[in-house]
């Protein structure tokens, strides 16, 4: 049982990918992939004017609507997410966020010549935001290794060593020294330090690698499932992670796990589908081409990103002819794949509740802006969700967590200590 100031319930976040929204059928005909090799002559600066502002407004709206926070992430040289430098956007959000957290999921540690830079930028953001940061770290997959010409097999070693350097920079009074296999620093003494002590919450994404789960669990970080699987697949990873948390002697709580989902909510199932269908297929057919779609897919599993043992298990449990999210041909496929949830408030609530109740997910990271969805529709769905789905999910998860995962909150601890013993 730990003490925290957080309410003991599921947390709901709004995640923005900030895609390039101006593609059409010619993209599909001309280009094998939306990543790394798609010519940037297709990028039109005139159309880009105001785009970041629009996307940031959508995240600020989520904060105004009472979500627990917003999520940004890092990708390079692609049309899926125009966020090579998420910390810049986090900085732009800091004066505009009232209550919500800012989750950056995450900074790609191996891309940095010295990961100290990541410790410094996150510490700045934590100070600027008044302690609202959730700091994500990611090793990057094939897309990132190809984008930055860094060695995929060395990335994992550098990743964990880099994180250890960052945590040292935040927690050991400096100046200290750091001598690792990949990074050596004579002076580790960053100014500023993060506002949250001992350090901001740390999240790490994973795609079912057992080795990653152990490293995350051991350090007490939060594991975020990034695989875009349906409920059964998500459960396999989350329940395995839960076991591993126990194995390494830590206490499990659903807030140690997050999941990425896409949601569009409308007044009825029909309205929701009608309003979002074009944007959903823009996302699956274009944004996912070269990644979670068989067509053009060859970057995701860059060689050496897994140990031979994990790679063997991946081979034994995957089928190159099976459909990925981006291979959805029709609405039925979208529905069955379970990662893009579209419908009335009640439909959406039920499906999200399954992830909380069955897969023990405590952080729902929801993509409201899907593909080329308009600002108007994004705000409408995000608002309707906040008014109809969010309150019940919070209340139901609180009832569940207080029963199954009791946590002594800071407020409760204070209240208890004030009560006379006889009561």
């Amino acid at each position: 049982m730990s003490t925290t100031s957080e309410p003991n319930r599921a947390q709901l976040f709004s995640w923005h990918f900030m895609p390039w929204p101006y593609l059409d059928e010619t993209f599909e005909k001309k280009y094998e992939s939306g990543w790394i090799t798609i010519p940037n002559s297709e990028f039109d600066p005139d159309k880009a004017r105001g785009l970041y502002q629009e996307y940031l407004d959508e995240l600020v709206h989520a904060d105004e609507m009472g979500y627990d926070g917003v999520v940004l992430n890092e990708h390079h040289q692609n049309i899926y997410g125009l966020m090579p430098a998420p910390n810049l956007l986090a900085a732009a959000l800091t004066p505009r966020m009232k209550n919500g957290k800012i989750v950056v999921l995450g900074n790609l540690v191996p891309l940095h010549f010295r990961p100290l830079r990541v410790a410094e930028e996150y510490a700045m953001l934590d100070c600027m935001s008044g302690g609202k940061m959730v700091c994500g770290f990611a090793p990057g997959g094939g897309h990132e290794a190809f984008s930055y010409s860094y060695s995929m097999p060395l990335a994992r070693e550098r990743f964990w060593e880099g994180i250890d350097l960052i945590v040292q920079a935040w927690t050991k009074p400096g100046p200290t020294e750091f001598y690792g296999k990949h990074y050596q620093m004579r002076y580790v003494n960053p100014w500023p330090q993060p506002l949250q002590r001992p350090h901001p919450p740390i999240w790490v994404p994973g795609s079912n690698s057992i080795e990653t789960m152990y490293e995350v669990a051991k350090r007490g970080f939060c594991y975020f499932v990034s695989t875009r699987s349906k409920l059964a697949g998500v459960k396999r990873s989350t329940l395995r992670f839960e076991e591993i948390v126990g194995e390494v002697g830590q206490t499990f709580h659903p807030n140690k796990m997050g999941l990425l989902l896409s949601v569009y909510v409308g007044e009825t199932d029909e309205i929701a589908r009608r309003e979002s269908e074009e944007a959903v297929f823009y996302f699956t057919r274009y944004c996912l081409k070269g990644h979670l779609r068989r067509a053009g897919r060859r970057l995701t599993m860059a060689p050496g990103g897994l140990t031979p043992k994990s790679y063997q298990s991946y081979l034994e449990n995957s089928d190159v002819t099976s459909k990925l999210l981006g291979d959805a041909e029709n609405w039925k496929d979208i529905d069955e794949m379970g990662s893009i949830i579209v419908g009335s408030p009640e439909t959406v609530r039920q499906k999200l509740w399954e992830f909380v109740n069955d897969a023990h997910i405590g952080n729902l990271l929801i993509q409201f802006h899907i593909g080329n969805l308009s600002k108007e529709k994004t705000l409408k769905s995000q608002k309707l969700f906040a008014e109809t789905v969010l309150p019940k999910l919070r209340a139901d998860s609180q009832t569940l967590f207080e029963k199954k995962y009791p946590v002594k909150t800071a407020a409760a601890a204070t209240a208890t200590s004030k009560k006379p013993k006889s009561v």
Partner: protein
Amino acid sequence: MKSKTRTVVAGGKSVEILEAGKGPPVLYLHGVYDVHSLQGEMFAFHEALAESFTVIAPAHPGCGESTGIGEISNIEDLAFHYLDLLDALDIRSATIAGFCLGGWIATEMAVRNPERIGRMALIAPAGLQEPGASVGDFFMYSQNRDGGIMRELRELLFADADGPIANGIVPDGRVSVSNEVRRYKSLTITGRVGWEPPYLHDRKLRGRLRRITAPTMLVWGDTDRMIPIANGRAYSENIPQASLRIVKGGGHSVQIEKPDEVLAHVVPFLKSGKDS
């Protein structure tokens, strides 16, 4: 020619060796797609070589049953690893044949300890990158596209990308799980030493080649799309005693695609170094 497997400890690492033949020893250092990386047995080329030599083919760290991959993070680490192996095998002046990555390792050994290398036959060795002659993106093409297509990799490795040899070794879809893992292990060690800079070269190697004292033969397929032949010319111009032999109709994996032509160059050359 039946090959057998044995294990040798070199510099604290366990090395799996595939060995065949009789006669003077030839250390064969394998490539990214070669013996140990595509299959656990020798190809026809190695078996024919074993008619004249004792072919000693170690698996790189992390390949086959060889250990110690965690200690290897650049090409120099591999060069010292194989200098350790020469010590373990008690070879004072080595005759080396190497393909692709293996040829590069041989040159990195030879610039460091020229006296330990008596003679080298290098088949399409990596290691240099002449302007405009970059190594093909085999890391990208090693993964199938569209749920199975491997044609781009076949094109990098073979002159005839649609022929039976190419399709037999790199078919569309997946090969057996054990052979997929074998390929993955080979790409993993290669990625540790050859991903940065992209790909498979050492910017300082060209200037060091003058240190090599071993008579060196370079063999290149005339349609090598993985390592452009400009790099072969640069090797032959910068190694003091070098010659370049070009095999017509051969791709990168010329010893698999045209074994007889390659043997016709390599066997007499390696035999002429009887003193080693």
